[in-house]
């Protein structure tokens, strides 16, 4: 039996009565009070997530920027120190090794926050391609990461407003951390990078400020409502960014790994595209279900805000426009669904 890893907040999750599940080799809280109330807390107020299982890789040195520019799809020259960028680590075929956020600490010092399940493959990928004057380190164990998300997140933490995709050192109730204005919920919020030893204390202070503890269950429904891809579901080393609707993070005018196949797909138009859909009949779509018109569901669940089954999936490109009718095979039952504009949920429409 494989031993599951535990984050520095493990004891806190137990004390809060969380339901713990294995996730990417970690024992993580899937819910505390329940997925639906936690989801709604993030949409209406603020919720805190332990995302310490995510990996942190440091890339440093005079040629660190050059290394990252050759491996990542987005253009690092669009950001400066104190800024962050969503980007893709691509393979030679234009497939997605991982999606990640790169933080420029200094012009020659970067932090990459990567998916838990890809921490080792990413690290190996970067190490194998290291340049003489660039150094790649896995610093994941030094840090915990606490995401605090929701329309009242900054107010509850007593933090000043800051533009999305920026970061700065901050102090919350005497505890130093790096405050990243990033997240995975579609709400305003922060991700707090803190020394592992002080993580439990910071978690306690955050909850004392009236923020609801939230598990990975709500994290998944929140990201699905706003159509953020999940690596392993929507995107993988076998899927390309253009078909996945991630062309906006690919600077195709630059040279990076896999740029040529991506240019070809962009020019010819992808054969299939990742779309968002809403069920028109009862039933909840789930990952792996067939779409009768071609393709399959990559993620599906119940939307706590819209109270209907929603999903993401690949369909033939000619069916990608909003309004197209789809038929989902829900365990042998044909159920109607309709392609909608992304995101599926946004506050303005409710």
């Amino acid at each position, binding site marked *: 039996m494989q031993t599951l890893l535990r984050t520095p907040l493990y004891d806190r999750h137990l004390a809060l009565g969380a339901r713990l599940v294995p996730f990417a080799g970690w024992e993580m809280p899937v*819910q505390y009070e329940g997925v639906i109330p936690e989801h709604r807390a993030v949409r209406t107020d603020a919720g805190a997530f332990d995302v310490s299982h995510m990996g942190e890789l440091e890339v440093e040195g005079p040629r660190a920027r050059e290394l990252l520019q050759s491996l990542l799809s987005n253009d690092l020259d669009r950001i400066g120190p104190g800024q962050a960028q969503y980007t893709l680590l691509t393979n030679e075929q234009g497939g997605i090794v991982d999606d990640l956020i790169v933080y420029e600490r200094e012009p020659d010092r970067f932090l990459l926050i990567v998916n838990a399940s890809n921490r080792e493959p990413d690290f190996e990928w970067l190490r194998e391609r290291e340049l003489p004057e660039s150094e790649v380190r896995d610093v994941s164990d030094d840090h915990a990461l606490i995401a605090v998300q929701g329309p009242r997140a900054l107010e509850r933490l007593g933090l000043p407003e800051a533009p999305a995709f920026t970061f700065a050192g901050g102090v919350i109730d005497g505890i130093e951390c790096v405050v990243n204005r990033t997240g995975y919920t579609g709400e305003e919020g922060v991700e707090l990078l803190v020394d592992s030893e002080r993580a439990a204390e910071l978690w306690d202070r955050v909850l004392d400020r009236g923020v609801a503890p939230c598990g990975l269950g709500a994290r998944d429904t929140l990201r699905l409502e706003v159509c953020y891809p999940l690596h392993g579901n929507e995107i993988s080393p076998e899927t390309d960014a253009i078909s996945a609707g991630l062309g906006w993070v690919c600077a195709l005018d630059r040279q990076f790994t896999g740029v040529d196949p991506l240019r070809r797909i962009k020019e010819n138009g992808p054969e299939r595209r990742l779309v968002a859909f809403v069920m028109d009949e009862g039933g*909840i779509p789930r990952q792996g279900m067939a779409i009768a018109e071609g393709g399959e569901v990559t993620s599906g669940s119940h939307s706590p805000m819209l109270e209907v089954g929603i999903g993401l999936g690949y369909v033939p490109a000619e069916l990608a426009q909003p309004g197209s009718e789809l038929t989902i095979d829900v*365990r042998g039952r044909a159920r109607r669904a309709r392609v909608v504009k992304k995101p599926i949920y946004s506050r303005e429409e409710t």
Partner: protein
Amino acid sequence: MAAESYPDDLRYHPEHDWARIEDGEATFGITWFAQDSLGELVHFEPPEEGATISAGQSYAEVESVKAVSDVIAPLSGEVLEVNRAVVDAPETVNDEPYGAGWLVRVRLTEPAEADGLLDVEAYKRQLAEE
């Protein structure tokens, strides 16, 4: 959500289903333990009224945000009625698993099967062992 309870006038199936048997008919539902394991229900996929269902076989599905689960028939019979209130508001099962959250009413075709079900004490012993 309801507090944990297991009424003593019901018969139980090891797959966490209950039956309330009266005069050759029975009402079926899922136990407090089953709804607690699943979390808040967001979908109930019922059988057709008139369908024949068999003891030990799946006759419906219940779904929470995270998971779908087959519902096992404790006894064989013909479905007389589906609880539309649960189709419209599946969380009724979480609120009242033995009352308003019943799932189907059935005309029993093999009433003697009831002898094979658990009484409340036997079901509680099973839960204690899980």
